[in-house]
């Protein structure tokens, strides 16, 4: 989840504050122009992420991801960037046999974002 305009390179340092205290994880992400607190609550096929960003741009969000099938997930949430509160809805599809790479299509009221990502 991001609350910023995307840039090609956005280096950051991520520190796991609470790791594997099942079902909760929490981390702090330190970037060049902002820092974030990120939390994840996992309930089997449901994952809820919430977080807050300070800096430019600041924001808050809470997103639930439902992964009922191996080939895809549905994403529903809400985000507040600046003074605007917007709903977030989207899908993430994993065309391969595993979830090592996927395609996301996420809309947030102001536009639709298409991303392709994977794990090396």
């Amino acid at each position, binding site marked *: 989840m991001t609350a910023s305009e995307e840039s090609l390179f956005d280096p950051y340092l991520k520190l796991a504050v*609470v790791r594997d205290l099942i*079902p909760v994880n929490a981390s702090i992400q330190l970037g060049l122009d902002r820092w974030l*607190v990120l939390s994840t609550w996992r309930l*089997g096929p449901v994952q809820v992420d919430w977080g*807050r960003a300070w800096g430019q741009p600041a924001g808050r969000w809470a997103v639930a991801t439902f*992964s009922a099938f191996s080939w895809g997930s549905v994403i529903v949430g809400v985000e507040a960037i600046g003074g605007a509160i917007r709903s977030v809805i989207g899908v993430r599809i994993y065309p391969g046999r595993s979830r090592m790479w996927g395609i996301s299509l996420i809309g947030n009221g102001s536009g639709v974002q298409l991303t392709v990502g994977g794990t090396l």
Partner: protein
Amino acid sequence: MVVIAVLTVSGCASAAALTVLYTNDLHLCFDRLDSLQERIVQERDAADGGVLLLDAGDALHDFRRATAAVSGADEMVAWMNDVAYDAMAVGNHDLYWGSNSLEALASAARFPFLCANLVPCAGVAAPFVDCTVVDRTDVRVLVIGLITSELLPYAEYPWLSWADPTEAIRAVLGETGDGMDVTIVLCHLPVDRAARLAEQFPEVNLFISGHSHEVTPDPVLVNGAAVVQAGAFGRYLGRLRLEVETNGTVLLVEHTLLDTEETPARELRGLGRLLCVTAIMLATLALVLF
């Protein structure tokens, strides 16, 4: 003692008795572990021939009690070590601990975690294996694990892909099936799904199922195989008595579900960890909201 059915003709072996004790969907049922252990010890002492103790998955986690969603799996594995389980299928709830914790639990277990139809990407080692072979008093037993595709934490294990159980059994039997006297599938799948698999694999003698919390007082007999399930939460210990004849025929002599009793469990088990989890969630939520 009644002969219920003739099962399957498999590889040749000497005549031998085999008792299979089984559980499924224990879901950290600490209030029944003392009674289950007593039953297991009694059955081992009374058994004629070798004894196998197996679990068909979802032993290590539960959502119905908040404390069981955050702690207790390590204690459960320690108990399963103490009573000497021979193998456990991985259930969907067992996966909810996440890959790091599941790996630690599998390392602590003195029995293998089985799952033949979750396939890791090349170069990734899963904390479970497809199958195990157990030798008990002249009987060689192949035990295969399977898992449902329902309610899996796919996001937690991006390096795993779910494979069709039929293909998984076929692959294991092709690689390891030769020379086995008895073949057992521990399938974390409902009874009807297990019965459909039984139709396709006459070489499998026994399907111990799970996930659906069904009780089978009488085994479902399909294509010469028995399909059984012992409810959930440790209410029953399942017992099957098999005879492996000299000509390779496997006879199901008896199937019984043995009742267990509840004993008071420690109410405060896991409470500290639950409070810790709750405090972190509330703190991070407060950071977001205020």
